[in-house]
């Protein structure tokens, strides 16, 4: 192996290990993920709904939390969302909103 190849090998090593460690250290499952993943059954994985239920992916966090709190407090009419939102505290609603806003 000549010096050029050695240098390239080192670069590939660094790149490879970086890629690998990024997947090894994929991050922990957070409470926000835990709460928000429940929503996916109706709103689609990551909130990307494929059907008639509104998509919630990428909506501003403030909008999502306000809407959920309004559903919960009966200020905004709904079919089922009021019944769901009543299951969450303010803090939990904020975690859910942050997850989908990311």
């Amino acid at each position: 192996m000549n010096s050029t190849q050695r240098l390239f090998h080192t670069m590939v090593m660094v790149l490879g290990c970086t890629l690998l460690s990024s997947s090894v250290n994929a991050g922990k499952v957070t409470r926000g993920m835990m709460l928000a993943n429940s929503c996916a059954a109706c709103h689609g994985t990551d909130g990307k709904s494929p059907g008639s239920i509104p998509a919630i992916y990428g909506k501003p966090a403030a909008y999502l939390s306000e809407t959920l709190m309004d559903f919960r407090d009966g200020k905004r009419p709904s079919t089922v969302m009021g019944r769901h939102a009543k299951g969450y505290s303010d803090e939990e609603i904020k975690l859910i909103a942050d997850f989908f806003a990311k």
Partner: protein
Amino acid sequence: MNKLTRRDFIKLSGSLGAYSVWGGLVSSLSACTSKEKPAAHVVIIGGGFGGATCAKYLHRFAPNVSITLIERDKQFVTCPFSNMVLGGLRDMASITHDYKKLASNYAINIVHDAVVAIDPVAKTVTTGGGSIQYDRLVVSPGIDFMWDAVEGYNEVASKTVPHAWKAGSQTLLLRQQLMAMNDGGTVIIAPPKNPFRCPPGPYERVSMMAHYLKHHKPKSKILILDAKDKFSKQSLFMQGWDAVYPGMIEWVKGSSGGIVSRIDVKTNELVNEVGDRFKGDVINLIPPQKAGALAHIAGLTDQTGWCPVNQRTFESKIHKDVHVIGDASMAGKMPKSGFAANSQGKVCAAAIAASLGGYDMPDPSYVNTCYSLVAPDYGISVAAVYKVTDKGIVKVEGSGGVSPMDADATFRKQEAVYGAGWYASITSDAFS
């Protein structure tokens, strides 16, 4: 040559020839992995809502974990929306899913084979094709039937009198029998005692069969011989039946003679506990249920016929490092539904990711929602949010409940639309 410009790098890459980027990458990857433990292997048995969801979310939570999903069949026909096939609103293709996207999108190794044994000590799963080693095992085997709990009703009898409580050929058999029946005939449906898969399912089925009969055989009747004295969303279903199918449906509760103890397949007669006989032109007998056969083979069940689990992690209380999710598990106050299995699959995936990653899992949160169709534009629902306490999984106080009684047509139609949206979302959440 201490600095490389981008142009140099491209030139260099091109001139390296046999020393390919990929070859270098592979050797460098093996160089850094060799210092670490090999990736953990999680085997998941059963590719329904529980198992498929668990496999996908485990990959999302812990992409370094190697995942094998063992499922006997190449295609999965969902029980949810199979009632719409009976009503003529859907075809079988629209409720049939496969595993190709799970394999390609999440690097899940799909093995289509039948599991014949599990050894929780050696941590191996034996299939027809050989033996597979696991670090963690997830079992999502669904339900099986207590054959002969209704005298005379067994697997052979189900070939002529369908249960249609596992979707597929049984769904089509019941559909064909409804289509062959004469106008003015009687359909008898016999729902089982609790607990069983999909508590509102028999009553949505009544609704969808009534929808078909109303439009094609309007002089026909549906008789429900129920083992129970009450059922899920009962007031809402009954209000809907009165409004949409007046005079067509009769419900006999368990304590008024609804408990079926015997069937005579030759004469198409059901016999209740006090000896009354009921002759049907079409009979749909849904037998009492227990955890899927695999759970029994693997010794994961207790005297109830279901699987006791730690309701925070879904790890079996009987075998270490084996988790049981979905209908087969005893999940506190959660019903046995595809939605619940999907929710449990995610919690179980989080528990395994945390355990393998050496950290504490966050407190679990679970949800269930069941939409039912009374008619094509008439939907109703029941929902709840769940948490785990020292008493197991319980409903979060104040959450959930059923759709309001006496709602207007717009509300009912909206829930029918959302029901279809739910189906699109949950099947994509589980299978793609």
